[in-house]
């Protein structure tokens, strides 16, 4: 039992529990906060895995931008509590059953079939340095230039789309 593993287990527990919180919380605001916690845990995982750039992106984009957006929308629409629904009585048990099966399958796959023997060591110092980020940047702007540029268009389209969708039509009843 080394310290890394202990850290890992703690983080894993935090992540899973925050996910569970998301799943169970009645209020959307709590759910959003649990999700932020989850994202933070995952960001630390990234650091452990030697991917500092991704970790920072995770924090800024997800926790910073996306979740703030969520909270704004929640505030806009009101965090109403939904009445209990009778529409899909079998949905919940079926979903849980399937989830259990899925988990079982994943476990089976992971431990009986894949035989992943690799172990991931603590990242070296230079990995978490500016050089590594530069390498990532160079790869991104050389090898993946086109996808990168396409992403910009995607974002532009999404932005325009969001504006169009939320724009109040003149004369339309609110």
């Amino acid at each position, binding site marked *: 039992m080394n310290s890394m593993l202990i850290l*890992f287990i703690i983080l894993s527990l935090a992540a899973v529990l925050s*996910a569970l919180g998301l799943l169970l919380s009645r209020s959307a605001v709590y759910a959003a906060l649990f999700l932020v916690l989850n994202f933070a845990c995952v960001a630390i995982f990234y650091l452990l895995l*030697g991917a500092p750039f991704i970790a920072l992106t995770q924090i800024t984009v*997800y926790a910073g931008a996306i979740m703030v957006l969520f909270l704004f929308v929640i505030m806009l629409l009101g965090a109403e509590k939904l009445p209990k629904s009778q529409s899909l009585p079998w949905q919940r048990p079926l979903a849980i059953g399937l989830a259990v099966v899925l988990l079982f399958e994943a476990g089976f796959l992971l431990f009986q079939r894949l035989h992943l023997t690799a172990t*991931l060591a603590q990242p070296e110092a230079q990995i978490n340095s500016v050089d590594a980020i530069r390498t990532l940047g160079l*790869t991104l702007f050389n090898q993946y230039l086109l996808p990168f540029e396409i992403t910009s268009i995607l974002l532009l389209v999404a932005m325009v789309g969001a*504006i169009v969708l939320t724009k109040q039509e003149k004369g339309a009843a609110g």
Partner: protein
Amino acid sequence: MEGTIPLSYYIAVSAILFTMGALGVLIRRNALIVFMSIELMLNAANLAFVAFARSYGVLTGQIFVFFVITVAAAEVAVGLALIVAIFRSKHSIDVDQMSSLKG
């Protein structure tokens, strides 16, 4: 701080998070929470990507995650806009209210 963590642990965490996300999509009726669950599933996938990238020592995994995050951002923007639009006409964010495409 020496010691290693087996790759399979990361994947297992990823799998658990993914299943939770999926459950959230299936069980919750609040459109916002459903959406959040989707984000959770994306995160789970990202985690697996990064873990494998570390395991194989290549950068492609990280770059893919980068793209996923970008797409997720776009998706959230459009998705939330949709939810707002739907709320305007239905005055609800219950996904079960959106069943006019019933066969």
